[in-house]
Structures are given as C-alpha cells and as structure tokens.
C-alpha cells in the first residue's frame, strides 16, 4: 500500500475527511492549529471555519452534530477550559451525527502557559476518550471515534499531545466514507437541557459509558502485546512509543487507545497474567489512579508518573537504572530567546511604553505581543490566559488605588484575542468605569500561530470573502466616548507616544488601537531594508534600543550595521531613534 509521511495533525484532518465529517471549527492554538488548516483543504466536502474562541467552535460543531452531520472541533489544551461549559453539557445531550472534540495537550509547555493533562476532563465531562500514539493511529482512531460516538451516543474527546501532533510518520490513507448524514428531528427531551431533561440524560449517558466499557474489552483500539520478559507495562498515547523504545525486548504491553472508560476486564486479564505491572503516565497519574480504583494496590502496580515536563525514552531508561553517555556536557552558549521579529509593529508600541515605565503597570495576554515581556522592553508583569489582558487590569487598578499607588494600569492584547474574549472584558471595564488604559495591538491577523484568519480579516479559512468586523466600531458600541478611543500607527513613535501619554493622563477607560499589519504578511513587505551610513554613524547605540534582530553593533569599529537585510522590512523605527541621521533605506535587490 502506498504510504505518505504525515504529521499527527495532518492525519487527523485526513481521517476526519475519510470519516465523512462535514463541519469543522477551531480556534488556532499550538499544537492543534494544523488540524483545521489541513481540513480546509477539503473545503469541497467540509465546511471549515475559525471560530472566535473554543467555546464558539464547540457550539458550532455541536449544532452540526445535533442537526445530523459528523462534526469536529479542535483546540489546544487550555482551549478546552474556555469551551468547558458547552462540553460538559454536550456530555449529557450526546450526539446525532458523530461529534469529536480534539484536545492537543502540551506536556513540556513548548508553547503554552501550563501543561495541564486533559485526560482528566473525560470522566468529569462524561466524554468517551481516545488517544492515538502516532500518525497512522491518528487517522485510524479518528475514524473509529465517529463510529463510537454514533454507536454509543457519546461525545468523543480525542486527546493528543504536542509530540503526536507534530511528529511525522508513514500513513496509509483511504477514501471518504459514503455515510449519509442523519436527518434532524426535534428532540427537546435530549437536546434542551433544562433540569427535568438533564436529570434523565445523566442516567442515559452513565449507561452509555457502561456499554462502551464493555465494548472496549474487545475493541481493536486497545491491545495486549504478550511478552515473557521481566516487565509488563500499561500505557497509552505517545507514552507507548517511548516505552517501546526504552523497555527491553520481551516486555508485555497493555496499550490503551480507548482511555475512558478504561476497560476493567482488560486490566484484570493483564494483571492476572503478569502479576505485577508498571503503569506509565506522562502528566497526571490518570491511568495509575484508574487502575488503583479497580482495587489494585502497590502489590500489583508500580506507578511511574512523569508529572512535570515532556516524557521521553531517556527518562524511562533512567527509571530502569540505565545511565546516559554524553560526548560533552552542556556548553556555555548564550540563550536564544524568541523575539519580536524584525519590522514587528509591536516593537514601536513597547518602545514607546517603556519610555513611560515609571508611570504605568501593564498586563499582557497570549499572542506574539507576549514576547514584549523580555528585556529590554519588560513590557508587562502579568499574563494569564486569553482575554485576561483586559479584565485583570480592572481588579489590579483597584488594588493599586487602595495602596495609594498612582501608576496607571494598562492592558495589552491583540486583534484575535480581542475577538476571542477580550471584548467581554472591555464591556465590563467600560460598564464599571474602571480606571484603566486598554490597548488592542491590531496587526490584522492571528500571528503567533502562523497567520490564521480572524473576524477582522477579509477572507476566511476557506479563502472566501467574508464581512470584516471593525474593532473600533465594536469598541464604540460599548458607549465609550469617541475621544477616549485613540488610534495610532505603532511604528510612528511620535504618534504612539502621544497616545500612550493620553492614556496615562486620562482617568476612567481609555482604549488605544494600534493599526499596522504583521510585518511577515506578504502585503506588508516594503521591498526595502534599512541601510546605515557608517560615515554618519556616531556609535551612540540609540538604534540598538529598538532591540531589533536585524541590527547589530560592531564593538571594534563602534558602528551599528544591518546584520540581516533579508529580514529587515525598513519599518523605520531605528531611523527614528538615530541621532545623527545615519539610517536610510535601500530597495531590496
């Protein structure tokens, strides 16, 4: 059979298409983003859309499912928190067309604010849970997930991790299923979750989960690999691959693909055959505690739980008592933290704000602008979750006021985060007449995750023209007085500084919207790069305060120079900082 190399995310997209999925919605978030991007390639068969946030994504998918179509919602692990409200009640309603919610967890916090283990959601929200361990399983298991969802009338949580999402391996693909959509029938007793109906649905879903637990005993998604070696292991997901790598040949495995409900009969059978087993968990002791709940104490199981950081085969080998041999230990190399790109419009905002550092306290949010936290800008002190950049300032301003601290509280978030949940917070700030200055750094795209469309773009995920929502008009719709809404080009330092100064001087709510597209967008490329006249450069290093990765300083010759003219977009920030007029522009050749 012909096999292609696909990532886990690409395989989920392909598998969803093969399963006959007809509606898919997501909010971008590493490592889940590529699922919807790849599903959009099947736009002739699947309506694929970015939603404003994960809650909206789940509700769009749930609506399609209740209507009779197979549907998918995808998000990163913290997105499930934002979507938890509809997810917990969808657990009760069950489905009409199959419904799968993909949670992409991030053990090791490669690009996230925490490393929560979303396997714990499944028993809590009454969802069936399926975990793949490589790309082939991503494709096969997502197809099985739709069968299970419809057969048992359950929502399926398809739980992946960064290493599953972003690893590529060989996959045999198939064709799209010819499954016909189901028809929509009004069933308020099943889908209108008022108390009287919810109580009955709770009974129904508990029964469905019991039936699935029986089915799981013989499901191909769970498997026992016999072995007569020293060790016997229970595991799931990517942990299985690490264990296969690290444990000696002949180790017996009970690998779970359906991890909620866990088949008790399979655990009984495996422990009966092997006497004592090691239960390996990356993240929380989910499998270990479930097996303990079946009545197996430490006589029967040893739990290896890797709560912090990503698991790899090396960490298991250390547990097995094997050391590592290194060629040379760690070398002394300066760190290379991620930085705002050359030409990034956020740099102008942070430069201007930093000049007023003693007059304000700032709160950030999740997005490219979170990179402004680093030196030299030290742009904000607090960043928690999507949208909080506009609500934490409300409470923080009360605290500073109580302490007689006269510094002004700023909140910072981007255009996509504003649509995600920042607007809710803004409405409260205006309604409460909070003493805050809130800044939307609008770069016309969801940039951090790699340029996804959002409510402020003219095209949608499928490439079709859609109504573009105006952030400024949304802000004014709160009733904020128009003179309290300031817009500025963040790369025009004079205008940016004036807006920040007004924001500091005002009391009550001021909103600043910075307008300048992400420098990496094709339409934002200027075709020019900065050039420094070394005759005129006086070596004062004023330009270096822009902290631009394109600029470097020759310490011997005492001159600044453009070190990376490919990346430089001639944004003009360094030229505005130059005291000797040494910085001009050149057309890129």
């Amino acid at each position, binding site marked *: 059979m012909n096999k292609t190399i696909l990532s886990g995310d690409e395989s989920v997209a392909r598998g969803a298409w093969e399963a006959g999925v007809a509606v898919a919605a997501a909010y971008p978030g590493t490592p889940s983003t590529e699922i919807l991007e790849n599903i959009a390639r099947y736009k002739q068969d699947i309506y694929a859309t970015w939603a404003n946030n994960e809650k909206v994504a789940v509700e769009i998918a749930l609506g399609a499912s209740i209507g009779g179509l197979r549907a998918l919602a995808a998000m990163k692990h913290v997105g499930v928190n934002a979507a938890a409200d509809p997810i917990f009640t969808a657990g009760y309603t069950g489905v009409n067309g199959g419904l799968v919610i993909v949670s992409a967890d991030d053990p090791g916090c*490669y690009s996230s604010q925490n490393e929560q283990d979303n396997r714990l959601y499944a028993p809590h929200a009454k969802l069936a849970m399926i975990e793949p361990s490589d790309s082939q399983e991503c494709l096969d298991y997502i197809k099985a997930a739709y069968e299970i969802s419809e057969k048992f009338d359950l929502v399926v949580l398809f739980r992946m991790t960064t290493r599953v999402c972003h*690893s590529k391996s060989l996959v045999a693909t198939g064709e799209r299923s010819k499954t016909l959509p189901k028809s929509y029938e009004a069933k308020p007793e099943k889908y209108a979750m008022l108390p009287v109906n919810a109580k009955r649905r709770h009974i129904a879903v508990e029964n469905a989960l019991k039936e699935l637990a029986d089915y799981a005993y013989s499901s191909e998604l769970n498997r026992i690999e016999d072995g007569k070696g020293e060790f016997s292991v229970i595991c799931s997901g990517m942990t299985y*691959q690490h264990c296969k790598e690290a444990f000696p040949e002949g180790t017996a495995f009970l690998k779970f693909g359906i991890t909620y409900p866990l088949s008790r009969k399979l655990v009984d059978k495996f422990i009966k055959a092997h006497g004592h087993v090691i239960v390996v968990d990356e993240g929380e002791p989910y499998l270990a505690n479930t097996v303990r709940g079946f009545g197996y104490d430490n006589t029967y199981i040893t739990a290896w739980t890797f709560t912090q950081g990503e698991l790899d085969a090396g960490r298991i*080998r250390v547990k097995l008592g094997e050391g590592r041999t290194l060629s040379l230990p760690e070398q002394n190399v300066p760190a290379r933290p*991620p*930085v705002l790109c050359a030409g990034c419009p956020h740099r102008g905002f942070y430069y201007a704000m930093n000049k007023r550092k003693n007059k304000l306290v700032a709160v950030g949010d999740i997005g*490219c602008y979170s990179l402004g936290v680093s030196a030299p800008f030290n742009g904000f002190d607090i960043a928690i979750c999507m949208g909080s950049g506009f609500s934490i300032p409300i409470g923080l301003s009360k605290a500073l006021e109580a302490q007689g601290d006269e510094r002004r509280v700023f909140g910072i978030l981007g255009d996509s985060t504003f649509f995600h949940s920042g607007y809710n917070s803004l409405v409260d700030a205006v309604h409460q007449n909070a003493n805050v200055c809130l800044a939307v750094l609008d770069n016309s795209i969801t940039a951090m995750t790699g340029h996804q469309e959002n409510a402020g773009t003219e095209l949608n995920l499928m490439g079709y023209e859609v109504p573009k929502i105006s952030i400024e008009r949304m802000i004014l719709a709160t009733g904020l007085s128009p003179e309290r809404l300031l817009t500025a080009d963040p790369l025009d330092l004079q205008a940016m500084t004036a807006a920040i100064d007004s924001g500091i001087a005002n009391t009550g709510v001021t909103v600043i919207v910075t307008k300048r597209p992400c420098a990496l967008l094709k339409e934002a490329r200027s075709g020019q790069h900065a050039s420094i006249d070394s005759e005129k450069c006086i070596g004062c290093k004023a330009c270096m305060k822009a*902290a631009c990765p394109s600029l470097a300083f020759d310490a011997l010759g005492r001159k600044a120079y453009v070190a990376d003219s490919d990346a430089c977009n001639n944004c003009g920030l360094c030229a505005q900082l130059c005291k000797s007029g040494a910085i001009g522009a050149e057309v890129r050749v």
Partner: protein
Amino acid sequence: MNLLFTGVGGQGTILTTKLLSSALAESGYDVKMSEIHGMSQRGGTVLTQLKYGDKVYAPNITEGEADYIIAFEKSEAIRAIPWLKPGGTVVYDEREILPMPVLLGKAEYPHDFPQSVKSILIPAYKLAAELGSARDQNIVMLGAIAKLLGIEAAIPSKFNAAAYKAGGTYIETNS
C-alpha cells in the same frame, strides 16, 4: 540512525528535515520526524529530529543519542553538543546569527567550535550566496547530509538543484 537538526527560526531547518524524511521513506526505511515549533518561529532555536531504520517507535531522541547533528548556525551547533552520541559527528555551518542577549551586549558569542568534538564544517551560507541566493543555505546542507548518509534526495523542482549539488560536492572534495 538518529539525526538532530538545529538552527534559528526562519533558516529552513524544518523544511530540510521534511525533504530528507521523504527521501528516506522512498528509500524504504521506516521514518519518524519530530518538530517542535511555535514560539521558536520568532527567532528562537529550532530543533527537529529524524529517526530512520527498519522499525522506529519514539519520534524523538534524547541527549547522547544523535549519530549526526546538522546545525545551520555555529552557536546552535555548540549548544546541541550534549545530544551527540559518543563517536557521532556534528555537521555545521560557520554562519553566526547573534542572539538578542549578544546584540544587547549582555553575553559573548562563542566563536570557537570545541576541537574535541568530531565535526565537519560546511560553508553552506557562503556557497548558497555564491550560487545566487543565501536563503538556499538549507538546500546546500541537505545535499551535504544526503551525501554523508549515502542517499539521493529527489528535491522538488522549485528548490535550487545547483545548491543541492554543491552540498554533495563539498563533502566529496573535503573528506
């Protein structure tokens, strides 16, 4: 065989690993490749890993396991040394991209690659620039590593075939 690719966001590290993965799969190997991106797109370190053989389980390797480290930037080559298997080789470009702490004058750039580590220097950035586009540095590196592994990577026609050839030729004439 375990390979670790490292570079700075934007250098084409991930693309190079993908092209090599496809070539190895076409040669009949089981192949797994792992990339971690996200924040690293913004000028941070990018690490990708490629494993191939008869059967591969985990897609990622741990420190002390890389047969080859292929580094597109000198300080990243030095940073990655703990990943090297004893007896392994670091293949690196001498190109220096100064990280922010160095640009801000808060840290020193390590200009000297440790003599005690087996290494092959490929001036890929320079060779690519001589062939017309410095951005093809990654394709020169791909040509070099394909030659070292003894495989032929059929690179899609949109990539610079001359750059690919230059990498292989450099290995032939300098080893």
